[in-house]
């Protein structure tokens, strides 16, 4: 196990390095204009551009520029220039909102996905099955930016069931926090419920053919015990992996758009605001931190998987 962890961690560090190089290329090398000009933002004065050029050392060699950039990112000195604000502190302010959204949505889609998947597996071929297939196809086809406006318009504006968009910190008022987040949670979750239930269903149908299930039945366990203790448990392992991966992808993907649609001032909202103002330093920061987070989660998922399923440790799961 330890060997596996070490190997996986080395792999992770390599990927992080590649990610940082990619971000460096995207922001400082690939585009076809002076980098200081781009970082300065739309209405920058020549003085500001000049000072950024010196600050970031754009006259240096590329490796030197890379080191300068990384130093800025990791010491929290990344600054957006108009007006001067620390990118790191803005990102930190946004994290609670982003995590509230993503974790809540994750719990909802996991819960409904598992419950629906379980029941459709024990009655395979039934009406629920067909409904879930439809939901899964719809889930990958409905854009978030269609669900959210429809929900907001009808449930918030017309029927006034839910409060107007925004985010209330849980420390301020837990009830308001909850009611403000219900719609965003379901907006994100609904896309995945169908998919998760399908995956659980097919896992369970596979596991049901295993010998140990037959043994469990043969030794006289009740059908419910067989299903929950043996079939469900073993079908959950791949789901856990999938969930970890999707959770990372949600934080660094769907959550951005959802935050914008519901005016939740999280990290994604900050990124979108910066896109509108064409300010690059915040986008650079969010991309790097977001990618690091995702890569880290992926490594954790692999380790958890190896812990739950010892067969993985011997295989090539580290790749």
């Amino acid at each position, binding site marked *: 196990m330890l060997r596996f962890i070490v190997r996986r961690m080395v792999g992770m560090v390599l*990927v992080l390095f*590649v*990610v940082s190089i*990619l*971000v460096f290329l*995207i*922001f400082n090398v*690939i*585009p*076809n*204009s002076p980098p200081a000009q*781009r970082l300065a933002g739309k209405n920058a004065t020549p003085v500001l551009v000049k000072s950024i050029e010196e600050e970031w050392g754009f006259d240096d060699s590329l490796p030197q520029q890379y080191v300068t950039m990384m130093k800025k990112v990791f010491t929290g000195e990344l600054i957006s220039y108009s007006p001067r604000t620390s990118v790191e502190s803005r990102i930190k302010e946004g994290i609670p909102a982003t995590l509230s959204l993503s974790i809540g949505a994750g719990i909802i889609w996991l819960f409904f996905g598992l419950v629906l998947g379980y029941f459709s597996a024990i009655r395979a071929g039934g009406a629920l099955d067909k409904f879930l*297939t439809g939901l*899964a*196809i719809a*889930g*990958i*086809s*409905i*854009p*978030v*930016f*269609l669900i959210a*406006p*429809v929900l*907001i*318009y009808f449930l918030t*504006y017309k029927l006034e069931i839910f409060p107007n968009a925004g985010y209330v910190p849980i420390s301020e008022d837990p009830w308001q926090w909850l009611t403000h987040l219900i719609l965003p949670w379901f907006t994100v979750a609904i896309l*995945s419920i169908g*998919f998760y239930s*399908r*995956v659980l269903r*097919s896992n369970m149908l596979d596991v049901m053919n295993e010998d140990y299930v037959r043994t469990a039945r043969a030794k006289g366990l009740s059908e419910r015990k067989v299903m929950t203790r043996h079939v469900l448990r073993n079908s959950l392992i791949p789901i856990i992996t*999938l969930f970890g*991966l*999707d959770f*990372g*992808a949600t934080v*660094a*993907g*769907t959550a*951005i*758009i959802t935050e*914008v*649609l519901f005016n939740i001032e999280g990290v994604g909202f900050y*990124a*979108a605001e910066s*896109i*509108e103002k*064409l300010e*690059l330093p915040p*986008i*650079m920061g969010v*991309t790097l931190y*977001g*990618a690091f987070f*995702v*890569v880290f989660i*992926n490594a954790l998922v692999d380790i958890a998987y190896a812990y739950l399923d010892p067969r993985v440790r011997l295989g090539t799961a580290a*790749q």
Partner: protein
Amino acid sequence: MAIDPQPEALAAGGPDAAFPPAPEGVSGERGPWYLAYKRFIRNRLAVAFLILFFLIIVFVLAAPLWANNVAHTGPNQSHTLEKLHVNGEVHEVVTPEGRPIGPQWFGAGGKFFLGADSRLGRDEMVRLMYGGRTSLFIGVVSGLITTIAAVILGLLAGYYKGWVDAIIARTLDILWSLPVLLFGIALGVSLAVGGLKIGPLTIEGGSIWIPIFVISIFTVPYIARPIRGEVLALGEKEFVEAAIAQGAGSLRVMFGEILPNLASTIIVFFALNIANNMLFEAALSFLGAGVQPPNSSWGTMISIGEELLTTQPLLAIIPGVMILMTVLSLNIVGDGLRDALDPRSKVRLEARAGMVEREGASV
């Protein structure tokens, strides 16, 4: 279910039907492609959505007709200060408070059929049609680029194996494990600000080739990885060995022998990839990192319309419904194609959903 002789296939094509599709069969009327076509036609849902997809194409292609003959305006033309005669009454296109006019349907002879888009007073219907052109163009072209690049990479990696495979497969793995939306935003914005220069080719910051470029890069792994796997498996087959024994060169084996056997996979993934890319484009454009103003795409229209959600909900909802219909029809047609071309395929929905679901995740 190793080989699954479809009853209808046996009836139509005799014993050949059990063999996997080979492109040489195109000429023969009862070839595997004909059988696949028969199977597809039988799938009513897929056919209905294929028709819907064609209707959407016709709709967006008709944009100049509608713009010139009915709406008498262009997609980026502002009408803020103009008045509109509707059934004898006079309305302002945009009220002094900045509220655009709502849908007029045919009240003004087709002008402002869906109302105006914002305080800029542009014709929403015209923008919807031209925006659809942009969205579909980006989806299809980036789908083509992605597919071609993915097939070449998959062939090289799966055929040569060794260090070629190591490099390509590792690169694809890393690309796959990145949060694509974030990287799409990063690349989209920094190119929108700076533009791009590849050798003699210069792309301006506002060009739609920038989102095409961005989307193509980040979706390659979704096709290249399965293709590579399939090439690895095909490389072990006797017909490849036979071709090599007859003295065929690497290129000949890759493109002449293996590639035709990938045809059904490529077709299916191409359809699904367009759907995926259109969602990606919409997300980028919605956030301002894709299609740049004043050009419209369905994604930018939602982001403009969303600001007026309480008064003019249709402005945000209609482009969203267009995206949904297009993406849904491509997904269902892709699924139908998979069933028709490869009836033995076990992984259908799961594999396809994985394309979208696992964005930004590694395996």
